[in-house]
């Protein structure tokens, strides 16, 4: 049990140490990194099965009992997020090894990537608000490096925006931590869950709003999303893919966790979150419609889709949260895949501008299919995973009589379909022999890149096929979130 909970954090750090030691031998680094992430994937899958079977599990780091020490804790939501995150990290790592560029040219890619993995795992597993801050810092430090690998002027410029915004969010987070500690005298999430309830309503609302702003910046909700479409597209494709799939979702996870665990039902800002969710969906998708670059369109869609997850949270019902969880499952896989395909397109054509792309289906029929399936899924066309996820959210919305946000979410789906078909018809359809930069890949490289992308497409199809059991799992995870007693008792050892 201890190994299951601590392994996903400790093993990537061990891998990072070995990768630094391996130095310039790229092949040794590759073997270490892939083995490490595979081991973590196995551990986290076992953890998920175990948690789903036996309920929440917790470990006290250093043997110091909560609330004095730091707790590592996994409930169903954390375990689900962890499994998905590690699978994405592994698939993108394989893709990056295939792609000429970032991974090959930089001795630091593998160590930093593994540190990012450790940070993401810690963010999901920690049961301590300050430790969550540390986890965010670890993954942000790693992301600063990955974002600017290559050191081109436009990367450094958008990297600056990203760094400044992240530092601002971190400073706010630290201030929020200070307020929470001053008000309650603890930062352990389970302990807070009991102590926050005793605070005056005004203080509780203030803390809840402050945490929404902090995690809102990290998860790019309206109106705090502006940094995202600016900074993500310039990074190397594998890096953009893993950021798009994971980093904002770490923010969403923190939102879900803090709003459900810390605050009692009467301070839950449901209406506010629903309004923010609707605005996030609309503004994100409208931003996407006006763009003409594949990666920028996809980046705006990240924002739009965060809205759906926040909508599930804002309903504050088991059905709503279950919808949010299954939406996150679907989104992480599909979004990562789309960015990987965008990277393959850029690799082949040398550009991501829709105006310069045409007829790629003749050159790359496989890519056309690999893009089409997740794109339709993203728009929520049956029978793909996006349909399942959106259906769950819409049903939850109807159940909670939140008709406006449901209507908005359906309209936004249509616009999503519009901009996905815009990308697809511009890039793969159209006249001409197809845009070609003449940069073809060697067979093994191509196998790695297309293989990992294809694997993720298969995974997203599998989500649709296994929708029933997955929704049941999401519902159990949501029930855990709504009823925090199991979590609190496990952590505080009662």
């Amino acid at each position, binding site marked *: 049990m*201890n190994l299951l*909970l601590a*392994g996903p954090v*400790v093993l990537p750090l*061990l891998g990072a140490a*070995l990768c*630094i*030691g391996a130095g310039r031998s790229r092949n040794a680094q590759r073997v270490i990194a892939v083995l490490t992430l595979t081991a973590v994937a196995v551990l986290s899958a076992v953890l998920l099965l175990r948690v789903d079977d036996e309920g929440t599990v917790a470990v006290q780091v250093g*043997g110091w009992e909560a609330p004095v020490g730091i707790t590592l804790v996994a409930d169903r939501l954390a375990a689900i997020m962890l499994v998905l995150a590690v699978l994405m990290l592994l698939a993108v790592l394989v893709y990056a090894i295939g792609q000429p560029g970032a991974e090959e040219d930089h001795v630091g890619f593998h160590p930093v990537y593994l540190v990012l993995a450790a940070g993401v795992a810690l963010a999901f597993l920690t049961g301590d608000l300050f430790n969550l801050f540390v986890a965010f810092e670890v993954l942000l430090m790693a992301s600063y490096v990955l974002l600017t690998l290559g050191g081109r002027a436009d990367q450094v410029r958008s990297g600056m925006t990203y760094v400044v915004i992240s530092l601002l969010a971190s400073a706010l987070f630290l201030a929020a931590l200070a307020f929470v500690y001053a008000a309650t005298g603890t930062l352990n999430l389970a302990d807070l869950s009991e102590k926050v309830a005793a605070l005056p309503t005004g203080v509780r609302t203030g803390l809840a709003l402050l945490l929404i702003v902090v995690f809102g910046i990290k998860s790019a909700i309206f109106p705090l999303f502006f940094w995202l479409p600016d900074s993500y597209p310039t990074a190397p494709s594998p890096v953009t893919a893993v950021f798009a799939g994971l980093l904002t979702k770490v923010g969403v996870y923190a939102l879900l966790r803090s709003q459900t665990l810390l605050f009692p039902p009467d301070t839950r800002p449901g209406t506010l979150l629903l309004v923010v969710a609707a605005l996030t969906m609309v503004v994100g998708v409208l931003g996407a419609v006006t763009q003409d670059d594949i990666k920028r369109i996809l980046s705006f869609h990240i924002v739009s889709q965060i809205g759906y997850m926040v909508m599930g949270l804002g309903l504050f019902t088991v059905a709503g949260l279950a919808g949010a969880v299954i939406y996150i499952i679907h989104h992480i896989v599909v979004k990562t895949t789309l960015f990987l395909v965008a990277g393959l397109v850029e690799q082949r054509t040398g550009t991501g501008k829709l105006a310069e792309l045409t007829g790629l289906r003749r050159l790359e029929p496989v890519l056309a299919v690999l893009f089409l399936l997740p794109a339709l899924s993203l728009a929520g066309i049956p029978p793909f995973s996006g349909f399942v996820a959106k259906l769950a959210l819409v049903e939850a919305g109807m159940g909670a009589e939140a008709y406006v946000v449901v209507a908005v979410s359906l309209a936004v789906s249509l616009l999503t379909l519009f901009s996905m078909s815009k990308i697809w018809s511009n890039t793969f359809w159209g006249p001409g022999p197809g845009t070609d930069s003449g940069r073809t890949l060697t067979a093994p490289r191509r196998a790695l890149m297309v293989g990992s992308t294809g694997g993720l497409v298969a995974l997203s199809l599998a989500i649709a096929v296994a929708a029933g059991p997955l929704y049941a799992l999401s519902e159990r995870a949501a029930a855990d979130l709504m009823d925090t007693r199991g979590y609190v008792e496990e952590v505080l050892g009662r």
Partner: protein
Amino acid sequence: MRPRRSLILDTTLRLVFDAALVLSVYLLFAGHNQPGGGFVGGLVAGGALGLRYLAGGLDEVRATLPGRPWHYLSAGLLVAVGMALRSLVGGGAPLDQTAYTGDLLVIGTAKLTTATIFDVGVYLIVVGLVLLIFEGLGEHPSESPVPEEHGS
């Protein structure tokens, strides 16, 4: 281009450098019960290396310690993570600590906790990081042996 060396700085350095390293090691071990620790110790050692850099530039920093910066980073991270794994393999909580007491003949009785070994890892990481910063940013030392006042 090699900067001109300053006699005063070189002489002072000879006196201060070793003392600073001893102080850094003292802080590292004192950190278990008193102010100090691996991070602070590493920073003091980094400060001593900084003096070397001021006196002789990057070449002098490179000549001071054996190995390259990333060897220190890697070794430090391995030691620290190793301590976390050690307790896990034994079935304990991650980073759980154990104390060993030994009789060191002349020096007396010494107590060594695994937390101190973890701190040695932190110390090495900080030293490695400082070395790496000089490696990455220190390649073109200014012409004067000591940077201008505002540069410090």
